């Protein structure tokens, strides 16, 4: 009974501390406290609208996000996907950062969660796709003739060049909606353009790319 009472008091103290933190303790950081304090200061400035501070802090935390993603088991190019998602999440959640708490822990938690989301998504996709190597041996690629002579890196290069030649609005729409697969709402928040304008830009960009590439891709 006495132990139960002690446990209850401890629990209440912990909850109280979480709800109304009195000290500026910084728990759960895996970065030196000087870095954490510096980033925290930059983020506070970013909350006030300081673009330079925001640019600096986002640039400096990319390696930390990559480490967090790898620690969760994300590998290869998927690490970059997690970085992009985390940067977008930080942008949308920046008003929730409390400078009394660790900035590193804040970013790491978001990164770990986004890494797990990505792994789950990949697992779901993997379970829907069937491994059937013989299917490729039995049937010819429908567009084999136009594809001949181009390997994957050539295709990617041609596509990159074609996208780069698009106007700024169209390129932005393709990058956010088609390549990064953001929702219209997210892309709208990032670009500051209406969802209608983004749709129109994407439609025009696709038309331009089809004309430009013809049967190359």
């Amino acid at each position, binding site marked *: 009974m006495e132990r139960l009472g002690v446990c209850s008091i401890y629990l209440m103290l912990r909850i109280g501390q979480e709800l109304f933190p009195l000290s500026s303790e910084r728990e759960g950081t895996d970065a030196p406290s000087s870095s954490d304090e510096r980033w925290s200061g930059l983020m506070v400035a970013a909350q006030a609208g300081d673009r330079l501070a925001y640019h600096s802090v986002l640039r400096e935390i990319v390696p930390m996000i990559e480490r967090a993603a790898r620690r969760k088991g994300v590998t290869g190019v998927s690490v970059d996907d997690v970085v992009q998602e985390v940067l977008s999440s930080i942008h949308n959640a920046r*008003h*929730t950062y409390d400078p009394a708490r660790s900035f590193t822990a804040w970013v790491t938690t978001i990164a770990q969660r986004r890494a797990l989301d990505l792994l789950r998504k990949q697992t779901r996709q993997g379970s829907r796709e069937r491994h059937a190597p013989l299917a490729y041996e039995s049937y010819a690629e429908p567009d084999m003739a136009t594809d001949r002579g181009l390997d994957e890196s050539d295709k990617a290069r041609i596509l990159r060049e074609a996208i780069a030649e698009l106007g700024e609005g169209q390129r932005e729409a393709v990058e956010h909606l088609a390549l990064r697969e953001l929702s219209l709402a997210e892309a709208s928040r990032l670009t500051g353009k209406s969802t209608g304008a983004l749709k129109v830009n994407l439609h025009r960009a696709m038309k331009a790319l089809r004309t430009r590439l013809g049967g190359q891709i």
Partner: protein
Amino acid sequence: MSSKQHTNLIDALAADLVPVRRLHSPGLRAAFWLAVVSAFALGLYLAYDITNLLIRMEHVPGTKIALGAAIATAVLGAIAVFQLSLPDRSPRWGFLPIPALAFWLGASGLGCVNRLEALPEMRWYTLLEAPDCLIYIVALSIPLSTLLIFMLRRGYTLYPGLTSVAGGIAVAAAASALLEIFHPFDAAGTDILVHAFAIALVIGVNRWLGGRLLNKQGHL
């Protein structure tokens, strides 16, 4: 994708930056929501005669415990939900209202059994009155859920499903506690099945609706 892509995105995000108002602490936000619940309670207290409630609390064993547990569930649920609305908080906050919820449901169930054994004629009376309880709980839950979801949209949860369920528990417990103010008979039980159904309905709707709205905060 490469570091160039990251640079491009960082440039775009920095260009998009506007000043933001920092979110208040979860304790303060929970206190605000609970203050609105208290305002509802005050309104009901002024509008209804609470003699019935006082008599029941005095004479029916378990009424005080069930009511206290419902209030504790609402308070702990509110604390949990506002903690979960922040991206750096542990999902274990979702467990916070569970002991009080179990205690509340247990006390209510036990009170119901005792009541039916002592006064078997109440069984039909309460079953006839029970649909009213469902309507009251659901009607009280609508404004409380709306306010809660509105406040949660200001946060940024990484666990939309869990946050919605915790919110549903807080709302259902608050609505049930408010119902006791003008409830015509034994708070501790009698219509436990309808109460349980109403609570499950409120939690389910919050899970569905809250999950959909909070999901828009961003997922892969």
